[in-house]
């Protein structure tokens, strides 16, 4: 038997061993992944009983749109609370007791532009039955959220209200 044959036999044997080891490791990791996914599903199922998940869109009116998908909120949160959560408190607002709601001045530094007096942050929700975006007729504090909600804040020109541009 030549030395070259021996080298190839060694390489083949080692490669087969590596293949077995790699396959075993893959199965171990696959098992761990399956366990993690199961735990994740179980945790989400538990969360569903004490919280809601909703999608929030921020349209800054300058072409920038930011989605906060699957934002987890506790039961009983209104749109203002959810917005506070999604922006991590990076907003400015004024509370009007007579309406029991906040007026949004700015979100993440956008809003209150004196050169655009007719621009304001508007609240929207996506109507699943009509397949269209619609504005809320009430303030953000009065909007009770549900798990299926898809909502939006849109900084836009309100001078032509109710003929407004869609947030998305």
């Amino acid at each position, binding site marked *: 038997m030549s030395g070259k044959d021996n*080298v190839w036999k*060694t390489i083949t*044997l*080692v490669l*087969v*061993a590596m293949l*077995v*080891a790699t396959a*075993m*490791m893959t*199965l*171990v990791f696959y*098992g761990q992944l399956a366990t993690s996914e199961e735990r994740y599903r179980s945790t989400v199922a538990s969360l569903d009983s004490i919280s809601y998940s909703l999608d929030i869109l921020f349209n800054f009116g300058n072409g920038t749109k930011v989605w906060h998908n699957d934002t987890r909120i506790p039961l009983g949160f209104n749109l203002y609370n959810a917005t506070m959560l999604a922006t991590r408190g990076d907003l400015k607002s004024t509370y009007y007791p007579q309406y029991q709601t906040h007026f949004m001045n700015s979100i993440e530094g956008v809003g209150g532009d004196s050169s655009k007096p007719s621009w304001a942050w508007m609240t929207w929700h996506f109507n699943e039955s009509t397949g269209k975006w619609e504005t809320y007729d009430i303030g953000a504090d009065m909007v009770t959220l549900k798990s299926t909600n898809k909502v939006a804040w849109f900084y836009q020109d309100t001078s032509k209200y109710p003929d407004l541009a869609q947030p998305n």
Partner: protein
Amino acid sequence: MLARRDIALISVFSALAVSSNYAMFGFFQIKIMDSLVFISAYLFGFRIGAGVAWITWLVYGSLNPLGSAGFPLLLVLMIGETVYAASGALLSRVWKKSTQFGARSFARKSLVLGAIGLLSAFAYDLWTNAIDGLMIYRSFDGVIIRMMTGIYFALVHEVADFIFFAFAVPVLIISISRATRMRK
């Protein structure tokens, strides 16, 4: 028929394997027993290796801190361990019972031994898990379930055997062969 020398060899190797199993009890799935079965078959033939495998499991499987394996699992383990005796005897034939691990060939031979250790452990795990699954669940699905649940332990066993076979086995082959030569 076994000669007195064969009985003595089986006894010594089995004693080493059993005692090392107890000594390494805390290290789950890491045992030098497989290497000892392999070496005994490599240096002294398949019959000796198989004898060591069977005696070791007969003792360790019966007198185990975790409880006795019992029949027929004990038989499955004994047959499974014979894989190491078979691979030892096979390599002994291919390498012509060589006990020379020169500086130039050491790395290659060590790698071959490591690969054989890993593959033998794989065959052993495949066999024992498959039969165990069949005995517990009495179905092919049970075989798959048992293999999947035991895969992590099998991997630890195979990696440990790779390391033992690559590093400890060459050293033991050299030293044991020198000791037996001294006796002649």
